[in-house]
C-alpha cells in the first residue's frame, strides 16, 4: 500500500459502510469512485433512520401525543445539528427541502415573486457561471424567461477556473442576484468566493452559493462565506436521499414570499386568504422529509465525529496522488485544474479518442464505478469542445489502493480499445 501523509484511517471508516463490501461482476469488490454523484451511507445513519421508523414515527408539529412530540423533537433537533454544522447564526435560517435543486429553485422563485428591493424583473440581471450544475442554470433560465430579466455568466479559463477578468462588466448595478457553485462537480474547481461576494455586495446583489460539492467535503461556514443563501444536498454527505438544505439570511427569509403552499407553512387559513408561518416553516409546505432530516442529522454527527478538516485533508492528499498517477496514463487529459490546489476531489478527464461511455463500461467490468457523461454540466463540455468526460470522485473512505485500481483499469481500457 502506498503511504501518503494526511490520510484518514480508512480501514476503520470503511467498516461503517456496508456497501463497500459489495462484490460485483463475479467476485470483484466494488471500487466506488462516483462520490460526486452520491455518497454511500454509514451504518450510523441507517440505524438512526430505522430507529426513527420503528420507535418514533409520527407526523411532526401540532401533535399532543408522545410519538408526535418525539418526532418533532428529532426533526427539529436535526435542524439544530445542521445549523451548527454550517455555523448558521440561527437555527431558523435552516430550511429543509428535498434536494439542492429544490433549494435553488426555491430561491429563484422567491426572487421572481418578491416585492422590491428583491424583485427580479425585466430591468434586472441575473449572473451565474459557465461551470454551474444544471440545477443552478435551469432555474435561472426559467426565471429569466418568465420575468424578462437578463441572464449573464462568467466564462471559464483554459485551465478550468472562472474567468473573473471582466467582473465589473458582468456584475453591474442592474444585477439582482449572483449564483455560483463553490466547488464544481465536473471540474473540481474551488471558486474564489470572496472576490465575487465583494463585487456583488458593491452593487447590492444577493449572493447564492451552491455548496452541494462543498458541504460533504470541507468545513462550511455560512457566516464567513458572506453569502445570502447557501444550498446543499443530503445524499452527497452520507445522508439519505430526499433531503436538501437551503440556508438563508433571516431578514431575507422574513421578507421574501413563500414558494410552495400547503400544510405546515401557514399561520392561519381561511378560504379568502392565508397568512404564513415564520421561517423556516414558511418554506416547508406539507409533511417534510422527517426521517430524512433525522438521517441527515445523524450524517452530520458522523462527519463531525471524524472532523471536516480531517476529511478535507484526506481528500486533498488523495487528489494530489490521483492527479499525479493519472498524468502518467498516456493520452489522458485532465479537464479542470491540473494540480490539487483549490480543488475538490472530483477529477474529470478524457482518454484519447475513447469515448467516456466505453471507458466507464470497461472500468465497470473491473468493478470500478466512475461516472461518465456531462455530469449535469453540459456547458462545460461545450466550452472545452468535448462530448463528455470520465469522472472519478473520492470521499472520506476512498484509498490510494482505489486510485491504483483506477489507473490499472485505465490501462486495461487503453489496451482493449487500442
Amino acid at each position, binding site marked *: 500500500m502506498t503511504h501518503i501523509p494526511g490520510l484518514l484511517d480508512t480501514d476503520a471508516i470503511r467498516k461503517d459502510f456496508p456497501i463497500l463490501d459489495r462484490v460485483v461482476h463475479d467476485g470483484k469488490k466494488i471500487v466506488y469512485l462516483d462520490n460526486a454523484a452520491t455518497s454511500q451511507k454509514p451504518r450510523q445513519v441507517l440505524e438512526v433512520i430505522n430507529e426513527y421508523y420503528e420507535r418514533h414515527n409520527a407526523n411532526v408539529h401540532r401533535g399532543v401525543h408522545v410519538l408526535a412530540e418525539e418526532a418533532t423533537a428529532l426533526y427539529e433537533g436535526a435542524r439544530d445539528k445542521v445549523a451548527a454544522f454550517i455555523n448558521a447564526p440561527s437555527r431558523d435560517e435552516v430550511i429543509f427541502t428535498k434536494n439542492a435543486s429544490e433549494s435553488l429553485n426555491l430561491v429563484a422563485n422567491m426572487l421572481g415573486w418578491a416585492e422590491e428591493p428583491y424583485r427580479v424583473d425585466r430591468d434586472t440581471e441575473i449572473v451565474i457561471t459557465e461551470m454551474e450544475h444544471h440545477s443552478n442554470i435551469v432555474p435561472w433560465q426559467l426565471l429569466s424567461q418568465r420575468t424578462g430579466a437578463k441572464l449573464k455568466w462568467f466564462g471559464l479559463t483554459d485551465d478550468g477556473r472562472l474567468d473573473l477578468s471582466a467582473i465589473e462588466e458582468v456584475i453591474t448595478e442592474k444585477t439582482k442576484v449572483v449564483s455560483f457553485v463553490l466547488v464544481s462537480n465536473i471540474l473540481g474547481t474551488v471558486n474564489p468566493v470572496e472576490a465575487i461576494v465583494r463585487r456583488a455586495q458593491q452593487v447590492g446583489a444577493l449572493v447564492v452559493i451552491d455548496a452541494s460539492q462543498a458541504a460533504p467535503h470541507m468545513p462550511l461556514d455560512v457566516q464567513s462565506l458572506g453569502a445570502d443563501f447557501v444550498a446543499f444536498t443530503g445524499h452527497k454527505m452520507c445522508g439519505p436521499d430526499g433531503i436538501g438544505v437551503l440556508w438563508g439570511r433571516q431578514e431575507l427569509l422574513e421578507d421574501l414570499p413563500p414558494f410552495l403552499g400547503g400544510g405546515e407553512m401557514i399561520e392561519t387559513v381561511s378560504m379568502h386568504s392565508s397568512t404564513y408561518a415564520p421561517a423556516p416553516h414558511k418554506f416547508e409546505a406539507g409533511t417534510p422529509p422527517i426521517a430524512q432530516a433525522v438521517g441527515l442529522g445523524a450524517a452530520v454527527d458522523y462527519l463531525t465525529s471524524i472532523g471536516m478538516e480531517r476529511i478535507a485533508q484526506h481528500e486533498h492528499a488523495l487528489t494530489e496522488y490521483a492527479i499525479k498517477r493519472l498524468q502518467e496514463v498516456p493520452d489522458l487529459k485532465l479537464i479542470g485544474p491540473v494540480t490539487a490546489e483549490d480543488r475538490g476531489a472530483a477529477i474529470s478527464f478524457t482518454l484519447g479518442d475513447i*469515448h*467516456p*461511455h*466505453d471507458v466507464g*463500461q*470497461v472500468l465497470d467490468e473491473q468493478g470500478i464505478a466512475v461516472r*461518465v*457523461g*456531462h455530469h449535469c454540466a*453540459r456547458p462545460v*463540455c461545450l466550452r472545452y469542445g*468535448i*462530448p*463528455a468526460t470520465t469522472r472519478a470522485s473520492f470521499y472520506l473512505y476512498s484509498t490510494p489502493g482505489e486510485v491504483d485500481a483506477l489507473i490499472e483499469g485505465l490501462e486495461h481500457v487503453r489496451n*482493449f*480499445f487500442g
Partner: protein
Amino acid sequence: MYQDVILDHYKHPHGRGLRDGDAEVHHTNPTCGDEITLRVRLDGERIEDVSYEGQGCSISQASASVLNELLVGKEVAEARKIQETFLELMQSKGQIEPDDAMEEVLEDAVAFAGVSKYPARVKCALLSWMAWKDATAQVLSERKTA
C-alpha cells in the same frame, strides 16, 4: 457486451462519411453527447446509400457501421423489418437469445444482444437506427407532397 464483431465495426467502420442523400437528419443522445448526422439516398424503393458522420461511443459507432452494411441495397420495406427486429432485440433487456431466424435477419447486428442488458447503452445502439428511420420517413413524405 464488447463482442469482437462490435469492436471490429468500431475500429473499421463501413460507409462512414457524408455523401449525397435525399434527406439528412441530425440526432443526438443528450445524456452522453453521442451525435450522428445521417443521409439516406433512395432509388425508388431501394436504399442506395446511407452515409453518416458523428461522434460517440464504440456501441453507437459500430451500430451505424452495421446499419450501413445491412441496409444498403435493401428495399425499404425489408429494411424496416430489420430495423424493427433490431429494436425488439435492443429493448429485450437481455431476455431474447437470438435464434437462427433472427440471426438471418440481423446478421452482424445480433452481436448487440448483450448490449440490451445495459439500459444506459441501449440508446447508443439505437441512435443511428432511429436517425435512419427518421430520414427515410422524410424522403418518403417529401415524395408524396412533391
